[in-house]
């Protein structure tokens, strides 16, 4: 390990979608085993950051750098990034008709882990994680996300995370749409099903989930920048006071800071 705090390093990342600049210079450092949270108003670029990290093609990086364990992530295809250990739990997971959860996940697992688990071996592994997450057995034979309820989709994302054991899991609003019980199960999954030194980046609007997944750092994103960083107490302050005080300081009007 060359740098201690060097799992993911994002420096001055600027991202355009079409002609519109969405990320206007994001800096973020995540060390191994750390839990980070990003909060911020709707439309400020939180998902954009997640997609850009994962390498979605319509997201054009115009400047800045992203490295994972010292390697240049921006040069990698989305699947290479995944194989490096980057996982994104989607805010809106796609439906893939005709492709069953277990088949899909087995292919993904074998590709990422460079293993050749048989159908039976994999089934056992999957079953264990499903039991932990209280997902009904029948889901493994269903088509990926097709007809899943909002909450089921989210839980299925966490199941995939638990199976694929990433080094960095980015959870984009995994908590929205979950009932209270489901939220606790999902949080427990994040806390207990990942390896010790895996890191988590939680994107959320609610302090609620952070009661279960305790963040080491909380960042606030406003208009494409991380404008404030603190500990768990920052999330509580936001819950209480909203974003206005930050918007005033860093938003449209407050563009004075460079």
């Amino acid at each position, binding site marked *: 390990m060359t740098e201690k705090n060097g799992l993911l390093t994002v420096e001055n990342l600027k991202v355009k979608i079409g002609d519109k600049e969405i990320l206007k210079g994001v800096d973020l450092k995540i060390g191994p085993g750390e839990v980070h949270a990003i909060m911020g108003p709707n439309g400020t670029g939180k998902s954009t950051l997640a997609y850009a990290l*994962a390498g979605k093609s319509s997201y054009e990086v115009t400047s800045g750098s992203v490295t994972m364990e010292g390697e240049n992530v921006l040069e990698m295809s989305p699947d290479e990034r995944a194989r490096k250990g980057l996982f994104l739990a989607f805010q809106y997971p796609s439906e893939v008709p005709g492709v069953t959860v277990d088949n899909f996940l087995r292919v993904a697992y074998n590709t990422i882990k460079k293993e050749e688990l048989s159908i039976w071996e994999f089934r056992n592994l999957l079953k264990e994680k499903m039991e932990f997450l209280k997902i009904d057995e029948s889901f493994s034979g269903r088509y990926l996300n097709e007809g899943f309820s909002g909450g089921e989709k989210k839980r299925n994302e966490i199941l995939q995370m638990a199976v694929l054991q990433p080094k960095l899991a980015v959870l984009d609003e995994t908590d929205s749409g979950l009932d209270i019980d489901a939220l606790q199960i999902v949080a427990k999954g994040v806390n207990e099903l990942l390896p010790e030194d895996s890191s988590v980046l939680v994107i959320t609007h609610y302090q609620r989930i952070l009661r279960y997944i305790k963040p080491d750092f909380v960042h606030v994103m406003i208009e494409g920048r991380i404008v404030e960083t603190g500990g768990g107490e920052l999330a509580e302050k936001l819950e209480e006071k909203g974003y206005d005080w930050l918007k005033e300081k860093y938003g449209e009007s407050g563009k004075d800071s460079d």
Partner: protein
Amino acid sequence: MSLPTTDIGTEEYKYGFSDDVKPEIIFDKGLSRKTVEDISNIKSEPGWMTDLRLKAYEIFLEKPMPEWGADLSEIDFDDIIYFVRASDKKMTDWDDVPAEIKETFEKLGIPESERKFLAGAEAQYDSESVYGALQGEWEKQGVIFVDTDTALREHEKLVKKYFGSVVPAADNKLAALNTAVWSGGSFLYIPKGVKVGLPLQAYFRINTQNMGQFERTMIIADEGSNVQYIEGCTAPTYTTNSLHSAVVEIICKKDSRVRYTTLQNWSGNVYNLVTKRAQAYENATMEWIDANLGSKVTMKYPSVYLMERGAKADVISIAFANTGQHQDVGSKVVHLAPYTTSKIISKSISKGKGRSTYRGLVKIHEGMEGCKSNVNCDALLLDEASATDTYPYIEIEDPTAAIEHEATVSKLSDEQIFYLQQRGIPEDEARNMIINGFIEPFTKLLPLEYAVEMNRLIELQMEGSVG
């Protein structure tokens, strides 16, 4: 058509090789009254068959080419060889099949598959069958599974009774042509109450350039019987065109069930114009499972005539149209009795400049109460230049009918590809996974070995940068 063990080549159509078998008999190109008589004479057929052929030839001359579908203007009936006999004897022991022919079939995975999981197999090479076998168990129970030429010699009564009873020569120009020059094909009879547990397979191979293959297949499922028949077809890649124009007639008697599965994978120079039709009697079920890959033009609409109360038709087809190909396929179901049901599922994939057309007809006659029909067509376009069109005709004359119809056209979505890539799956594999998912309702009906083969064939279609 299961996994071949030999690697034949890396080009996108891997069955495109030809071999130089010296045929026993090969006709000159062209079609005349004499061609028809010669075929009949070579086979020493009974007079009634010769007459039937000649009558059909007259009908062929009178009928116009179908102009409502794909472009057939390039077909030149005088530029086709109508009969090629590759081997003068049909074998029942695989070891006796001439070496080159054997090698061809072995490259295609036959009879390897037969040994593993088939109840019987037939292999046709150009105009005639070169090999046939049926497991003793089924033979003892009275199942007949032979090529249609042999059937005409050994079971003349049965053939005479049913030949042309489902697809008469006058049905269309190509059915007339087939009736005039037919050769080979499978003849399958299942006695009352016999349920054949394993599939029976026939394999059709065109080898000669400019060849016309006109097999005639008949299946008679007697009352309460049950059978699954699978056919596979391939041909070498030539610069000139070949014609495959088969007729398939099926009779499903009371309470019987027939599943007819086709996995065709023609080379890009084959015109594939096939008439397939079944009649289903009281409470019988006819299933057409039809995969259309390759060919230059395919026009094929497996149909079912629901003759008596409670009869059921299930038709599921997929078509993959690559650049230079037009898959004009679909289905026709005619409800001629009350309380009959039909279900049609059609899935098409168009790639490059490929074009796929769904053409279907569901007809429910007046007074046929309580009929149900469900039609579902989904088209998937892989490229900007790909095309698809849908002609779902529905003619309902009875007010009690319950009809559902749904059609969708979709593009391969970037969101889905990205989602799968985010789970470590490379882009090409992600595409294949989505496409195989799209046709999953079809593949899941195939025996496992064929499902695997099907997915692999699709992957081969995806690899070739045809253009």
